[in-house]
């Protein structure tokens, strides 16, 4: 997380820590974690943790460990060859079904899902919260959870940023309606290691403050500028169908 600050896990109780490779995810149900597809490409059997602000070994020993039972990568996610550089992050979304339900508590609870109503359409300027243990301004490896608040901006903003790697031409990347661009304020941005984490937006028309996962940290041209987030609203049907068809019944 660039441009953000340290925070306590209790402020982001849905935050899931993927140990290796380091990434994030969002708890959406006692038995399901939502994350980015590219997170699971290199590890389809991730070990995850929840309920901890710190992620040093000592802290992880006290955290709640989550084991994956099965992984569901969106069918629209296109694999690429090992030597190829990915430029298409369309449908960067995946679900992880857990072996055992998580035990909820003050530091472990799910984030809400959007529904298909227009209320959940994101307007430019809508603020979202991002969190994770990804690279920060000062550190490549972060030990304690960080967060930042950033606005939704037009996708063109993301398209206009020059890539961090000069060999990479941002214009070769695929931009779709399944993506949200956010950032550009005070250098707040997600970065490597934050992938899969939630772009949490306040639930509209709700008397009590609640947050839903509007986006998932997906990719970006350069940390500290703008980031692209998978637009979760576009995948609600797939998420619900996948969860329904693959839920573990009480008798299993």
């Amino acid at each position, binding site marked *: 997380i660039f441009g953000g600050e340290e925070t306590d896990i*209790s*402020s*982001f109780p849905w935050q899931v820590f993927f140990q290796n490779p380091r990434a994030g995810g969002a708890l959406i149900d006692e038995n399901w974690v939502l994350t980015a597809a590219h997170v699971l490409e290199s590890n389809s059997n991730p070990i995850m943790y929840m309920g901890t602000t710190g992620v040093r070994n000592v802290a992880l020993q006290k955290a709640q460990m989550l084991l994956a039972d099965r992984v569901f990568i969106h069918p629209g996610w296109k694999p690429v060859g090992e030597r190829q550089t990915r430029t298409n992050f369309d449908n960067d979304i995946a679900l992880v079904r857990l072996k055992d339900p998580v035990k*909820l508590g003050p530091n472990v*609870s*799910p984030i*809400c*899902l959007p529904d298909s109503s227009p209320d959940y359409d994101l307007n430019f300027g809508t603020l979202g919260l991002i969190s994770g243990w990804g690279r920060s301004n000062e550190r490549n490896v972060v030990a304690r959870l960080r967060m930042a608040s950033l606005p939704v901006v037009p996708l063109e903003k993301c398209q206009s940023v020059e890539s961090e790697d000069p060999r990479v031409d941002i214009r070769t990347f695929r931009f779709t309606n399944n993506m949200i661009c956010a950032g550009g304020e005070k250098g707040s941005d997600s970065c490597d290691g934050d992938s899969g984490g939630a772009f949490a937006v306040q639930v509209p028309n709700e008397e009590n403050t*609640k*947050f839903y996962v509007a986006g998932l940290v997906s990719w970006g041209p350069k940390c500290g500028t703008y980031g692209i987030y998978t637009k979760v609203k576009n995948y609600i049907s797939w998420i619900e169908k996948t969860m329904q068809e693959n839920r573990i019944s009480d008798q299993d």
Partner: protein
Amino acid sequence: DTSMYGEILSPNYPQAYPNNAQKTWNITVPDGYGIRLYFTHLDMELSANCEYDSVKIVSGDLVEGVLCGQKSSKNPSSPIVKEYHVPYNSLQVIFESDFSNEERFTGFAAYYVAVDINECTDFEDAPCSHFCNNYIGGYFCSCPPEYFLHDDMKNCGVNCSGNIFTDLTGEITSPNYPSLYPENSRCDYRVILEKGFHVVVTIKREDFDVEAADSEGYCPDSLLLTAGGQQFGPYCGNGFPGQQIIETKDNVLDIIFQTDETGQKKGWKLRYYGDPMPCPKEFTANSVQDPVKATYVYKDTVKITCLEGFEVVEGKVSSTSFYSSCQSNGQWSNSNLKCKPVDCGSPEPIKNGAADNTEDTLFGAVTQYTCSEPYYYMKTEGTGEYRCAANGTWVNEVLGMELPQCVAVCGVRNQKSVGAGR
């Protein structure tokens, strides 16, 4: 020893009999005969009342005659001077002479023969109840048609035993009713009904006329009814003296009608019917019966339906109704079955929630489901309140039998307060 005839001569006959002599002759002829004793010669001392010398003829305790003095036949063609006829088969001839016989007396000569007696007519009491037939040396009794001779060979009676009645209703009369019933009879009748029915007898006063009781109240002819240890009667007289309706407590009734040799009347007529055994009107609580009747009797069947919220449990099967039948012993079948409150059992547990009442689980009980707050909330509609319904399930007003669902509260940040410390 018996003989058909004999001769009796005074001592020393035909010479003078001695003084102070006494001799007894016991005459016996075979049974069925009488004795004809006749004297052909009599020459004895005459005295007043024959107190000096005499010959006495005794039959049992009866002195048939005492002879003394001289007698001669008045019939020239017959030598008999004195004759006796006794309708018995034994006789005694007793001769006595005293101490003084100044003259010579030759005594007597007597002869006896057995003669047939007519038992049918010779005695005051007729030996047979109906027909008497005399023959030489005896007699025999006989009976009219439909009568039979009893073992005593003298009395005739009617065969009126072994009559069994099994119909639920019937009529029974004495033999020949309303004509005279037979004498010397013992008639027995039996009513046997199916268990579960009691015999009820009705006798009209005018349907009863039996020889009246004697001065001591004893009925020479009598009607006696017995059932299940109860005895009714004996009854006799003109007009039925007992209750016109006799309700026994048994399904078997014995009727005995006895008659002696005299005093026949028209007899009696009775009707009977089987009264079904009643069963109690009380049934298990919390139920309704169909049909509802003032009385229930044997073979009645009733459907017992439990009120709402109650059920009958037999083993692992429960139902809301059952049938009972009034049995022959006056008890209902299935009387062990009771309508008990429906038990919904412990409320089903739910994930991430609980029911507050798991002990009171009978019909009408209420349990409240709540979710484990603050991390879960009740997703389903309704208040979470479930009531134990009549069908044995916990039911919610909105969800019915569907259980509530507790789902995780989402999107809530539990921000720690910063506090004053730096």
